[in-house]
């Protein structure tokens, strides 16, 4: 899977450049709200509960400064990605104890043919290891600029 395939799972309506939330629960809720608002999905609580259960097992803020809340649920029929950004940073129980600024939320259906969501996670986690890319994503002016940084990073 390439970054181009991952970008197809994102959308401007699911891009939150300035998260209002200041804690972990708030970030998850705000991002799921955006997902439900941008799609025909209607079971917000089911998705949120799945994400909370996953985070309770171990934090997905594997850093540095990036979290990947994710999981599979009956509430969706296809894979969706929601992107959030917090310039001030949020305590997301990160493994390094540092605030989290970038959030890539992946919500997949139970069957997830071809492990699409694991492959998408792999593409994003690899790109996010680069300090320069993370810095540029934090500064990107809008959704198109954000996607352009990801495309350039992968080329």
């Amino acid at each position, binding site marked *: 899977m390439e970054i181009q395939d991952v970008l197809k799972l994102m959308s401007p309506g699911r891009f939150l450049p300035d998260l209002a939330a200041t804690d972990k629960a708030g970030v998850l809720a705000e991002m799921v709200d955006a997902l439900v608002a941008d799609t025909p999905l209607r079971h917000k609580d*089911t998705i949120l509960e799945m994400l909370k259960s996953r985070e309770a097992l171990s934090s*997905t803020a594997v850093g540095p400064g990036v979290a990947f809340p994710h999981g599979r649920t009956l509430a969706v029929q296809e894979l969706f990605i929601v992107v959030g950004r917090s310039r001030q940073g949020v305590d997301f129980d990160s493994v390094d104890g540092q605030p989290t600024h970038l959030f890539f939320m992946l919500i997949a259906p139970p069957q997830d043919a071809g492990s699409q969501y694991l492959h998408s996670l792999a593409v994003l986690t690899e790109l996010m290891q680069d300090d320069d890319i993370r810095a540029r994503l934090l500064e990107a002016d809008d959704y198109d600029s954000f996607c352009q940084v990801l495309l350039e990073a992968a080329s």
Partner: protein
Amino acid sequence: MNRELALLINIQNLELQLRDAEDPEKARQLAEMGMPLDPAKIRQTIEELLQQVDQRQRQYYLRLRERYDNPVVSVWEGHCTGCFANVPTGFDSASNRDKVKICETCGRILFQP
């Protein structure tokens, strides 16, 4: 949503995580990404959630789990996605919405996404 159905869906979601954690290739991928899953911890969480489910529903779910990987399935375009049988119209009517409903053909618990 019906509380029992919400719990059962959450349990099944965790069972999907457990399957990933126990699949050597997926477990390796998750560990490489810095997100390893502990199967014992997932099993414990599933057990704790199961104890919150009404006894009759719990026993029904556990019986289904012996037969199917997916005891709870979504309804898609009027069909049970477990066995593809038609689901009666009115399944998702307002009067039915707060009940746990099952597929009349395969017995799986149904969820309208």
